[in-house]
């Protein structure tokens, strides 16, 4: 019978005499973070010093891409700061890397509920920071005049976490089920099905997660109409 664990089995290892228990997905997340950080550091140390005052070729394309991203996010958020571009980009990179890890045969970290809950709690914190910053303390509290709005603010991270977790977990189970059913004949077909469930589907989910983050922040940071 085909079986899947809802939470991945913990990995035990000893570090300086202490036995540590970590879930396998947390370990995968740390690996992803290390690789992405190393790439970013290499980018900063090798490529950025070689950028020229008058952009040409690749540098021009890069600058245009960053400017377009900033414009898109600034337009969505009523001009709420440039730091958002960096946050949204790193969120997208994290989600996509986490999903593509499955192509290497590991369990994707986003199919662990704790990871998706952490990401959506980050969104909740961001929403509140932007709300208090843009509207002021009183203005933000005034937007909770209707108690149902407070409820929707609390529910939003749970629903975002459940959506991402459900999509990733379902995709993982479907691919695993296919391998289980095909047994030794798993040639060719997994490439086609995996292209959808491991590549296309996570990209859509990352886009939806980002769109929801942006629209929640935009809703909270809208200037008060007087």
């Amino acid at each position: 019978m085909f079986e899947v664990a809802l939470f991945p089995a913990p990995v035990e290892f000893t570090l300086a005499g202490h036995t540590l228990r970590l879930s396998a997905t947390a370990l995968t997340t740390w690996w992803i973070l290390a690789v992405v950080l190393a790439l970013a550091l290499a980018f900063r140390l090798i490529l950025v010093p070689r950028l020229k005052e008058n952009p040409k070729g690749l540098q021009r394309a890069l600058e245009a891409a960053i400017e377009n991203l900033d414009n898109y996010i600034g337009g969505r958020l009523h001009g709420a700061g440039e730091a958002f571009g960096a946050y949204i980009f790193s969120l997208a990179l994290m989600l996509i890397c986490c999903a593509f890890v499955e192509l290497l045969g590991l369990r994707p970290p986003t199919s662990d509920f704790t990871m998706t809950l952490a990401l959506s709690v980050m969104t909740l914190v961001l929403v509140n920071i932007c709300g208090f910053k843009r509207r002021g303390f009183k203005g933000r509290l005034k937007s909770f005049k209707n108690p149902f709005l407070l409820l929707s603010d609390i529910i939003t991270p749970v629903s975002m976490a459940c959506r991402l977790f459900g999509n990733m977990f379902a995709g993982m189970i479907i691919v695993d089920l296919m391998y289980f059913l095909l047994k030794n004949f798993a040639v060719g077909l997994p490439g086609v099905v995996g292209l959808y469930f491991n590549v296309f589907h996570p990209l859509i989910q990352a886009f939806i997660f980002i769109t929801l983050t942006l629209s929640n922040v935009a809703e909270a940071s809208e200037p008060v109409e007087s």
Partner: protein
Amino acid sequence: MDLTVFAAAICLLSCVSAGIGMAMATGKAVEAVARQPEASGKIQAILLLGLALTESTAIYGLLTALIILFVKG
């Protein structure tokens, strides 16, 4: 027959309702764009958000069914 399979089938009814809901939303969006082509950007953004919210009901149903069937107790 095992009753858990039947329970999983009931869970998957949510996919049917989500399909109907998404079809209705898309149809209305097409109507709206046909009436006001200049507002297509805004309509698209709202439609995408609505589809994401509608799809999540289907996903919850599918997830519950998969957990009933395959997750070990």
